C-alpha cells in the first residue's frame, strides 16, 4: 500500500478520553503549526459528558488556508481503546495510525492498508514519573514530542508555546519541556518521519486564532454591554464566562475595585431574558447568551420586547436540538425559531457571523442595532465557530467610534417642549423616541405594556390604534434592512446562471467548494447573507440567476423558507442543499451536491417557465 504523502495539506485526528488532559497538548500541536506559518483549523468533537467518555480533536493542516472540515483522516492518534475500531475505520487508505503499543494488540485489531506507528507511551511515562496524575498528563506532551519528529514540526515553536503557556508558573515549565524532549528523543531514535510533513510557509499573516464565544463576549465589552444575564447551556456558556472574565479585566475601577458591569447567572432562561429586558428598558446595554432550548423558553419575553420596543441582544450559539446528546454538535437550526419567535405577529433582526472576527463585530454591532431599532437582535452563531478556535482577521476597533444609543429623548428636549409620544413615528422610519425612567419630574413618563396602547402609550384596545402600531413596526423592520450588515457577494470568473446563497459558519466550506467547482468547470456566483431582514440586493441576486442553491446546516431549509416568504422568491429556483448530521458542513459535500445538480440540469435543462 502506497503511503499518503503530503506537505502542509492533511488531516490529523486525536482520539482521546475526556478529562485526560489532552486538550491543551492538542492545542499546542495546532498552534505550533500555525507558528510555522501554515494555517490549521481544529475542531473539538465531544459528547455531552465531563469525564471518561470519548472526545476527538481534528486538525486540518492546509497551506492554502482552507479552514473548513475536510472529511477523512490521514493520521489518527488513537489514544482511546474504547473507540479504537471506529477510529481505525476513519483512516484513509495509505494513511497512518499512531498508537500506544505498551500493551500488545492482536493483528486482527489493525488494518493492512494503513501504516502503523507504535510507541510505548504508558511504559515510558511509568518509567519516568511516579505520580499517577503526572503519568497521565505528561503522556500527552510525550506524544506531542514524538509527533513533532514524525511530521517535521519545529520543536522551537512548541517549546516557545509551552513557555508562553507557563509564564508565571515556571515550576511547571521545565517538567513539560522535559516530557517534550522525552517524546522527541524516542521518536528520533526509534521511529522515522512519515509521508505527512509540515514545512515552514508564510500563509498565516497577522491573523488571530480564537474561538467565537470569547470573541462575542469581547464584542459585548467593546460594544458597551453592562448587564449580562444567562443560564448555562452548551455551547453558549463560555460567552458569559468570558464576559465575566473581561469585566474583571477591563471594567474594574482602579481605585475602588468596583466593577462597571453585572453578570447574573439566572435561575433559568425566562429569568435571564427578563433581566435583559428590564435592563434594556431602563437604558443599559444588556445581552444574554443561549442556545435553542433557551430561545424556546425566552419566547414570551421576546414577543413583549418586540411590541414594547425594548433593546435586547441575544447571542444564540446554535446546536442540534433538544435535551442532551446532539447538543454538543453543530447546526444552523434555530433560524426560523428566532426569526419569528413568540406569539402574535412578530419578526426579528438576525445577524449571521461567519467566524470569530464577525462574532466580535456582530456582537458589538447588535448592541448598537438593538438601541437604534429598539427591538431584540439575535446574533446567530453556532457550535462550530463558537467553541472552536478559528484563524481569522484580527479584531478591529476605531477609537473614534461612538455608541449609537438610538432615539432617546432627554430632559432638555422635554423641557424644550418636544411632544413625547412613546410609540409615535416622528421621523417616518417607524422608530419612536423613548425616555429612560427617572428622566424628568413631570414629562416623559409612560406605562409600558404589550400591544394595548395608542401612540402616546395610553391604554387602548381600539382596532385602529393596534393597526397603526403594528404597521409602524413593519416600517421599522424596513428601516432595519439598510442598517444591518449587508450581504457579501463573490462573482465567478465567468458569467453563470448558477448562484449560491449561504450564511454563518458555512463560509470556509463554501469558499473551498467554489474553488473546487471552478476546477471542474462549474462557475458559481455566491452571496453570503449576513442578516435578516434581507436587503433588496438579495432579491436582485436571486433574480440575476436561473438557479440558486441555498446551503444550510439544518433539515428544513430554514433560511430558504425565510427567502420564500419574505421575498416572495420562486420556490423552483431556490434549490435547498442541506447538511444536518451534526458535523460541520464540508467542501466535499457542497462540491458534490452542486456538481451533481448542475450536470443533471445540463442533461435536462431547468424548466424555469414551468413555475410561474
Amino acid at each position, binding site marked *: 500500500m502506497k503511503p499518503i504523502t503530503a506537505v502542509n495539506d492533511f488531516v490529523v485526528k486525536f482520539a482521546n478520553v475526556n478529562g485526560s488532559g489532552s486538550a491543551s497538548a492538542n492545542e499546542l500541536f495546532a498552534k505550533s503549526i500555525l507558528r510555522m506559518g501554515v494555517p490549521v483549523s481544529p475542531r473539538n468533537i465531544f459528547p455531552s459528558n465531563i469525564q471518561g467518555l470519548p472526545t476527538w480533536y481534528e486538525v486540518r493542516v492546509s497551506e492554502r488556508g482552507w479552514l473548513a472540515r475536510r472529511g477523512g483522516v490521514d493520521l489518527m492518534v488513537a489514544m482511546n481503546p474504547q473507540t479504537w475500531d471506529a477510529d481505525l475505520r476513519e483512516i484513509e487508505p495509505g494513511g497512518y495510525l499512531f498508537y500506544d503499543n505498551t500493551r500488545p494488540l492482536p493483528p486482527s485489531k489493525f488494518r493492512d492498508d494503513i501504516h502503523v506507528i507504535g510507541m510505548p507511551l504508558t511504559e515510558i511515562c511509568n518509567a519516568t514519573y511516579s505520580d499517577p496524575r503526572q503519568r497521565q498528563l505528561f503522556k500527552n506532551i510525550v506524544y506531542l514530542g514524538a509527533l513533532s519528529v514524525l511530521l517535521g514540526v519545529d520543536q522551537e515553536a512548541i517549546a516557545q508555546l509551552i513557555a508562553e503557556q507557563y509564564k508565571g508558573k515556571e515550576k511547571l515549565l521545565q517538567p513539560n519541556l522535559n516530557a517534550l524532549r522525552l517524546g522527541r528523543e524516542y521518536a528520533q531514535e526509534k521511529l522515522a518521519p512519515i509521508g505527512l510533513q509540515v514545512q515552514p510557509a508564510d500563509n498565516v499573516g497577522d491573523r488571530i486564532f480564537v474561538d467565537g464565544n470569547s470573541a462575542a463576549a469581547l464584542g459585548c465589552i467593546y460594544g*458597551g454591554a453592562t448587564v449580562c444575564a444567562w443560564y448555562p447551556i452548551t455551547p453558549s456558556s463560555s460567552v458569559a464566562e468570558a464576559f465575566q472574565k473581561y469585566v474583571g479585566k477591563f471594567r474594574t475601577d482602579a481605585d475602588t475595585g468596583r466593577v462597571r458591569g453585572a453578570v447574573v447567572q439566572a435561575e433559568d432562561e425566562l429569568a435571564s431574558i427578563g433581566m435583559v429586558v428590564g435592563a434594556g428598558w431602563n437604558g443599559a446595554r444588556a445581552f444574554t447568551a443561549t442556545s435553542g432550548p433557551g430561545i424556546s423558553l425566552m419566547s414570551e419575553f421576546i414577543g413583549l420586547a418586540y411590541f414594547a420596543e425594548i433593546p435586547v441582544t441575544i447571542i444564540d450559539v446554535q446546536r442540534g436540538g433538544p435535551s442532551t446528546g446532539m447538543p454538543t454538535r453543530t447546526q444552523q437550526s434555530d433560524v426560523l425559531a428566532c426569526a419569528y419567535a413568540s406569539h402574535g405577529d412578530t419578526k426579528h433582526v438576525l445577524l449571521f457571523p461567519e467566524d470569530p472576527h464577525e462574532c466580535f463585530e456582530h456582537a458589538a454591532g447588535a448592541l448598537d442595532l438593538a438601541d437604534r431599532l429598539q427591538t431584540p437582535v439575535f446574533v446567530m452563531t453556532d457550535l462550530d465557530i463558537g467553541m472552536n478556535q478559528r484563524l481569522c482577521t484580527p479584531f478591529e476597533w476605531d477609537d473614534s467610534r461612538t455608541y449609537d444609543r438610538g432615539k432617546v429623548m432627554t430632559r432638555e428636549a422635554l423641557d424644550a417642549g418636544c411632544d413625547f409620544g412613546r410609540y409615535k413615528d416622528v421621523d417616518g422610519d417607524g422608530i419612536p423616541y423613548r425616555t429612560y425612567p427617572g428622566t424628568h419630574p413631570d414629562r416623559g413618563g409612560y406605562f409600558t405594556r404589550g400591544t394595548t396602547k395608542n401612540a402616546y402609550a395610553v391604554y387602548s384596545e381600539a382596532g385602529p390604534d393596534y393597526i397603526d402600531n403594528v404597521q409602524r413596526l413593519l416600517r421599522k423592520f424596513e428601516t432595519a434592512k439598510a442598517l444591518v450588515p449587508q450581504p457579501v457577494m463573490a462573482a465567478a470568473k465567468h458569467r453563470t446562471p448558477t448562484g449560491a446563497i449561504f450564511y454563518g459558519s458555512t463560509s470556509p466550506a463554501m469558499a473551498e467548494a467554489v474553488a473546487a467547482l471552478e476546477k471542474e468547470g462549474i462557475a458559481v456566483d455566491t452571496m453570503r447573507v449576513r442578516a435578516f431582514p434581507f436587503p433588496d440586493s438579495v432579491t436582485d441576486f436571486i433574480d440575476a440567476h436561473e438557479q440558486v442553491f441555498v446551503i444550510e446546516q439544518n433539515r428544513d431549509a430554514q433560511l430558504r423558507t425565510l427567502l420564500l416568504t419574505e421575498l416572495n422568491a420562486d420556490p423552483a429556483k431556490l434549490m435547498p442543499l442541506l447538511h444536518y448530521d451534526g458535523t460541520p458542513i464540508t467542501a466535499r459535500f457542497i462540491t458534490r451536491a452542486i456538481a451533481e445538480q448542475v450536470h443533471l440540469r445540463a442533461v435536462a435543462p431547468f424548466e424555469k417557465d414551468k413555475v410561474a
Partner: protein
Amino acid sequence: MTYIAKPRLHHPTLPENRVGFTRRDYEGKISTLCAGCGHDSISAAIIEACWEMDIEPHRVAKLSGIGCSSKTPDYFLGNSHGFNTVHGRMPSVLTGANLANRTLLYLGVSGDGDSASIGLGQFAHVMRRGVNMVYILENNGVYGLTKGQFSATADQGSKSKRGAVNTDAPIDTVSLALIMGATFVARGFSGDKRQLVPLLRAAIAHKGAAFVDVISPCVAFNNHPGSTRSYDYVREHNEAVNRIDFIETRPEVTADYEEGHVVEIPHHDGTLLRLRKLHGEYDPTDRIGAMNYVQHHQARGEIVTGLLYADPHAEDLHEHLYTVDAPFNGLTEEDLCPGAAALEAINASLR
C-alpha cells in the same frame, strides 16, 4: 375599558410635601378595578407612603406582572415609568432594571397567582439575590383577572364562589420570603390603612429585598362566606404583632411610649424603625423566630400581620456584585470601551 385623564389642577389648599408635591401628584389614572377591590386600597396606601416620605414621583419605577393587581401601577404615581411585564416574571425584569440604574426606587407589584403560581421560581430567586426593591404582593387567594380560579395561596378547605373546595395545600408567601432570604418581610391588610402605610414606608426605607404581603379581598370572586380572604374573615382572624409608628432617617428622641412597649431597629444607613409592640415576646430581628411564629399562628387559623422581620445589616445585589455607584445607563464609551490599543494587545496574544 375606559380611562379618564384627571384634571391636574393644583388646589391652592392642598398641602405640599418637602419636595414640593401634593398628594394628587402621586395619583395615577382612574382605576378600572371593581368597586371595593382591596387592590385599590393598596394603591391609595402607596400614594400616601410616597407622599409622606417626600419621594420624587419620577424617581420611582413601577413594575408588575399580569393580573388585576398587576394593573394597579397605572393607577398610582402617574408620572413614574411603569412596566406591565409578563405573567409571573416581574421579578426578573425588576432585577434587570435595578441593575441598569441603582438610584431609583423600585416598586414591584404582583398578585398571588402571579407570584405563587406561575411565578413562584422568580419570586424565590429575587428574594435570595437581595434585589433592592419593595415587592408588594396583593394577595386575594384567587385569580381575579381570569375570573375566580383558585391561586396557590388559597387555603386548604376554602370555598370558591361557585362552591368548589380547594384541596391543595397553600403556599405561604411570607414564610417563603423568610426562607429565601428576604431582608424585610411584613404582612398587612388592605382594609387596615393605618397599619399598611407605615409598613410600606418602612419597606421603602429598607435597602435590600423588602417583601410586603398584603391580604387584599377580591369582592368579585373571593369575599363570600367560606372564603378565607374575605374582609370579614380577615378582620376576625387578624393577629397584629406590632405597629410601626414612624420611621426616621435620624434617631430622634420621643417620649410617646411607655418603656417596654417600643422597640427600635437601627439600620446601618442611619434609618431607625420604631415599633410599638403588641405581642410582648415578638422579636422582629429574629428570622427563625419569625418563621416559627408565623407558622404557629397560621396553624391556629390566625393571620399574623405587622413587621415580621427586618435585617438591620441587609445588603443588596449591587453590593454582592460590587458594582460602581454610578448608574450603568449613564456610563459612556470612556467608561466601558477598552479601546483600540487594548484590542491590539489581545490580538497579539492570540497569535
